[in-house]
């Protein structure tokens, strides 16, 4: 038999299968358009889903790096502005000391006035040294206390408060591999206890009052060293700020780039999907109209 024997049942079933698969394709495009995503479950595209999940994790990481860097920049900026003020105060103390070194031309009252200014500068420095970022002293390392430096109420000696611990300091992870220290501990700025800027200022004030020329000169030399140390610390903070800023920019760039590739992998190409929808609609309507014509006629229509 050369021809295929067709029956109404076969045609009905073919029509149903055709309509069903047309409707399925239409539903698929509709899902992509309404959810805005081409990958709605892993099986839609296992490879794409893997990339999507990886990219999602990377985006979250980069976001976190940006947050870490912003927090670190807060610490560094606070330290930087505090160090500027420390520099100013130390420089002023240095000038006062130079003035006091001209011992021959100054009377006791003038020296007392200079000593008083040094005392004020010293107490100002103590409060600057205790300046805080988010309730934590910026020069206090990881101390639990609220202050970095305190003056002894009796002797007036200023000492560094945090107990010495083996700490890496306050660290912020700013990229996959880079971790930057965002604090600077008091002794690195003000000098170790016993040889700190506070001790030098106290000695200077005593020397001024006692008109001790040698003492004043020793203090001048010490203050010069202190000034250099502060400047060095500020340069260090500046360098770290730059590093964190670069890392933050890199992380936010990466976040942007990754988000756009995530969208490329995962999101529906609206133009393509709309064209697809149109195409599938036309195909479905064509199938409907073909079906309506095919399943109606039979021999019975032509017999009387």
């Amino acid at each position, binding site marked *: 038999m050369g021809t295929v024997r067709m*029956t109404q*049942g076969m045609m009905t079933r073919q029509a149903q299968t055709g309509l069903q698969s047309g409707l399925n394709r239409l539903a698929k495009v509709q899902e992509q358009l309404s959810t805005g995503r081409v990958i709605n479950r*892993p099986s839609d595209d296992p490879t794409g889903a893997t990339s999507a999940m990886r990219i999602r994790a990377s985006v979250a990481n980069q976001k976190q790096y940006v947050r870490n860097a912003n927090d670190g920049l807060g610490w560094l900026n606070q330290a930087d502005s505090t160090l500027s003020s420390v520099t100013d105060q130390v420089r002023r103390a240095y000038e006062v000391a130079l003035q006091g070194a001209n011992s021959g031309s100054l009377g006791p009252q003038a020296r007392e006035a200079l000593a008083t200014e040094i005392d004020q500068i010293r107490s100002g420095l103590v409060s600057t040294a205790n300046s805080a970022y988010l309730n934590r002293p910026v020069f206090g390392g990881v101390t639990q206390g609220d202050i970095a430096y305190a003056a002894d109420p009796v002797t007036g000696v200023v000492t560094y408060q945090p107990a010495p*611990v083996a700490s890496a300091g306050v660290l912020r992870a700013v990229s996959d591999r880079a971790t930057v220290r965002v604090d600077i501990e008091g002794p690195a700025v003000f000098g170790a206890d016993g040889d700190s800027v506070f001790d030098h200022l106290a000695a200077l004030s005593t020397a001024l009052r006692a008109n001790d020329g040698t003492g004043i000169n020793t203090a001048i030399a010490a203050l010069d060293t202190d000034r250099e140390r502060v400047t060095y610390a500020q340069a260090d903070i500046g360098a770290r700020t730059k590093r964190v800023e670069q890392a933050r920019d890199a992380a936010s760039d990466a976040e942007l780039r990754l988000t756009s590739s995530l969208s490329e992998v995962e999101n529906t190409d609206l133009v393509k999907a709309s064209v697809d929808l149109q195409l599938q609609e036309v195909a479905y309507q064509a199938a409907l109209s073909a079906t309506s014509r095919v399943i109606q006629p039979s021999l019975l229509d032509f017999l009387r």
Partner: protein
Amino acid sequence: MAGTFASINSALTAMRYQQVALDVASTNVANVSTDGYVRRRVVGQTLGAASAPAVWSRSTETSSGVQATRVDRMTDLLLDSRVRREHGRQSYLDSMAAALSRVETGLAEPGSSGVAAALADFRSTLADLGNAPGSDAARSQALSAAATVVDAINLQSAHLSDEASDQRSHLLTSVVEINSVASELASTNRTIAAALGGGSDTTTLMDERDALALRLAELTGAKASVQGDGSMYVELNGQPLVSGYNAARLTVTGGVAADGSATGGPVTFALDPDTTGATTALTGTFGGDLGATVDVLDNALPSYIAGLTSVARDLADHVNAQHALGFDASGAPGGKLFDYDPADVLGTLKVAITDGSKLAVSAIAGGGRDGNNATALATAVDVDDQYQRLVNGFGSSVASARQLAKNQQALTDQVDSAREQMAGVSLDEETVNMITAQRAYEAAARVMTTLDSVLDTLINRTGLVR
């Protein structure tokens, strides 16, 4: 020389035969959309003259009419057995794809509410806590993010065990259906034998028999073959399930308890009793819906659960190990952050800490406002890769199951359409048959009228002269 009334008799047989043909056509039309109906065709045979009327005699009769010798079912045993085989495969792949798709929907990946998102969120709250180690809010946020991770893993494992329990109860109902279909088939075998013996029409019984065998193939992938006596022999994994008038009873012997709970271990079956009354254990893999259910229960679900268990265990172990290296707000070394029972990780995974101050955020003994251990904890949440592999491996298996089902559908459609070509009712054809029969009936009636008038001439007019 034919008898006077022989032609009347011939016309009568023609009328009878055409009536049967009309009858068959009307049955075909009536069953045009009946599932499993095979179109019938009446087979006629010319009634010949007696070949040896008597000793020393000779017949001069010509043929004398027609009779309907039998009604054929337009079917092909080979095609039927192919249909059964492909339907068995189709039903296996369909059930498999459907079950896997259901599980996949429960994974909620990729998305913003699944385990992957919870892990990312947990990591980011830990890093935030590292930035603000003194903040109670950051501590409680990290704890609630840890609880979210546990919830997400628990939700997924609940989906998996729900699916497993659905599949187990589906297995039990399937077994009941298989047994009832098998015993129905055995009793149909018996009825067919009786009907054949009595000489009555067996076509309807055979439709029923084939439909039952097809159903058995869909349910179990069993092989069936028609025996010489018209009975259907069904073989399940090399053992007879239906043989002659006897049906074996399929019973679950392991893996699933009678109440649908899991008993551990793979699902096993036996024929108890088998067709001879003894007990036979069944080995090998099953096809059809039953095979898919067993496969999902024995392989797909356990392997995903094992993967998820390993993700949960690694997460808890890695985080706990790092947590133990740190110190909490009071300066004490960190305890366990996650807790689980190794015997049932997914069922018992929980956050062991309820007080945020117990989070070992500091890397320095004695506490202090150090957040470096929290940052290290964020790095210790490193199961993302493992989880992605798990999910996407599962996604691939769903995609491939769906693709296989689709490919198989093409093959199944092809054999179905070959069978339909053979067995399906065409209304046009039946209309033509009907009209042919109608015309033939009319012609036979006309023959009878003609004979009547001939006889009228013979009886009433012969010898009369006007």
